[in-house]
């Protein structure tokens, strides 16, 4: 069950890479967060720890509902074109992501022996999600896709935290949620301002400052 959900999270990362339209990308992120929340809930069920239930609830509320809504709102307000506009076309992007997933397994192999029975594969899966999130950030042109990439990276981390250690201390988890939320809000505000200043959300505008 847990491994299945973890695999679903990784699958969503692949779907995100293959999304060619922005709303689809955001929706994929929402589904990934939902899977992550359910993963947390099942870990909570197996370990009987109430604080992981809280984390699961917060994951679903924030990352599966609130943040995707905010992103959709931003996209609607600034009337961004729907295409994702990748630097690298989608088939080769998928190929790179596959390579990254293999790399993640390779890196974590020496570590996996220490993990519990429950979570043996989860660390490799989470690292793969982190890598793919990072890849989305650097290979897509729009500012909003960078934000989604960052969020997918955070999802990967969350999966690592929940599966490897059955969750960090609650106060830390809450703080991380808070940081993620604030980061999205700030980036949203910047996205508005960038749009006003440049009339597009293309991050190629990030080329003025140089030596």
């Amino acid at each position, binding site marked *: 069950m847990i491994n299945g959900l973890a695999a679903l999270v990784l699958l969503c990362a692949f779907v995100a890479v293959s999304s060619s339209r922005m709303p689809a990308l955001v929706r994929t992120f929402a589904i990934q967060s939902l899977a992550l929340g359910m993963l947390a809930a099942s870990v909570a069920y197996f370990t009987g720890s109430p604080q992981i239930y809280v984390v699961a609830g917060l994951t679903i509320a924030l990352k599966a509902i609130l943040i995707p809504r905010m992103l959709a709102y931003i996209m609607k307000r600034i009337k961004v074109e729907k295409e994702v506009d990748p630097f690298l076309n989608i088939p080769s992007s998928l190929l790179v992501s596959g390579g990254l997933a293999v790399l993640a397994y390779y890196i974590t192999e*020496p*570590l996996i022996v*220490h993990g519990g029975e429950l979570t043996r594969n989860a660390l490799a899966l989470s*690292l793969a999600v*982190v890598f793919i999130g*990072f890849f989305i*950030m650097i290979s897509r042109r729009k*500012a909003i896709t*960078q934000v989604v990439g*960052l969020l997918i*990276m*955070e999802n990967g*981390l969350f999966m*690592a*935290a929940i599966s*490897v*250690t*059955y969750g*960090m*201390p609650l*106060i*830390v988890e809450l*703080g*991380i949620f*808070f*940081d993620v939320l*604030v*980061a999205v809000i*700030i*980036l949203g505000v*910047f996205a508005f*301002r*960038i749009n006003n*200043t*440049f009339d597009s959300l293309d*991050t190629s*505008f*990030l080329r*003025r*400052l140089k*030596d």
Partner: protein
Amino acid sequence: MIELLLIIPVITAALCFLMNRVMHNRRAIEIASTVGAGILFIAVLLFVYKVVGEGAIYEGALFMDSLSAYMLLIVAFMVFIGAVYSVGYMGHEYEEKAFGLGRLGDYYTFLHIFVFTMILVCVSNNLGIMWIAIEGTTLASAFLVSFYNRDTSLEAAWKYIIICSVGITLALLGTILVYASSVNVVGESSSALDWTTLRSIAGSLDKDLLRIAFILVLVGYGTKVGLAPMHTWLPDAHSQAPTPVSALLSGVLLNCAMYGILRFHILSTEAMGPGFSGSLLLLFGVISMVVAAAFIIIARDIKRLLAYHSIEHMGIIAIGFGLGGPFGVFGALLHMLNHAMAKSLLFFGAGNVLLKLKTKIMEDVKGLSQHMAATAVLLFIGMLALAGSPPFGLFISELSILYAAVTQGQTLVAAIYLLLLIIIFPALLWHIGGMIFGKPSEEVPRGEVSRLNIWVMVVLAAGLLVLGLVIPGPLATLIGQATSLFGGLP
């Protein structure tokens, strides 16, 4: 009682916000900000005094040992200096109608929220909370970086927040792995991520996990420190932020991020000896110095020049900690304070020039000694200090690090280090000297923009001189105590 240090900047920020929204009074905002920063500095001094005399203070998730006390001292002092300089600098821009009163109030509000996050970094015992605080510093300062709302400042802020957030995500993964190895030893408890707990069980932590965790943390927080090759956000953010913020980013924020690495460095040293984490710090330190030297030579914009100097000096600090030993660590710790003061002095000087001549391009500025004599003298002092010439503090700390390298038989590191310092010295001299001497290209009226700014700079210059001649007793004791925390002495 440590909460007090966290409450002061929050109250200050709230007061600035209220003065802004309710009273619409510029002076009231400035007084609230300056007095708040002053009270914070005094409170930190009292705490530091207590730590030096009676040892570390532990209060649940918060704690203060000699290392955090020393960092707090740097933060609080530089924040106070920066807050006073802000009054002159931002006040002048406000008078020139560069922005309205509301924005001025916002500036001070965000400034003190930023201070809050930095204080939280220094007093967190829980490494998870420390991570949250370091991410918080990025979020709080992003608005300050984008303050002018120009296309370039938006670009700088966007890069800053994206690059640092990605970096710091890796640091979180490192923190999670440390937690995982700690849970294996002490079981699941809220103290399993406390630095003091981790240190006491460091010997039994899983070595493989700890190694990977340290690499992730070094790359993650290293992004925030500005270690090359993760430094790309730094020159943009430093050059686009308002000058007092540039000084704080460079002098204080980078140190706070370095502090995050140090906590893990100490754990790794306890668990596996200084070899592993030390040599990584050494490597990144040398790379940073090399990269910075190249960009320092070709710099045209003075704030970018100073930003690359930050990368250079963070490299020096990383080398000092990487070498370890009493001289390496002592030198690196002292260098943190010295660099903060010298860099602020130069940023403030550059700020005075920017206010008057409206340019950051060094070629366009000539003959400062003729029309801004005080700024010119202070810039000259700052330049000598930053380049590491006697009798200023940076000479002592750089010499101490060099001594550590030589006595430990790290001849190659010592040679590269010395060579780069020798290359950078004339480059800086040429850049800043070109601004100070010569004839002004056009008729510029004499005079400074703000008396207050000059006095702030005089304080910094005097401080650098004092640190170069004699390190005051209590400060030496504090740094000595912090040095002994690093253990693993060869």
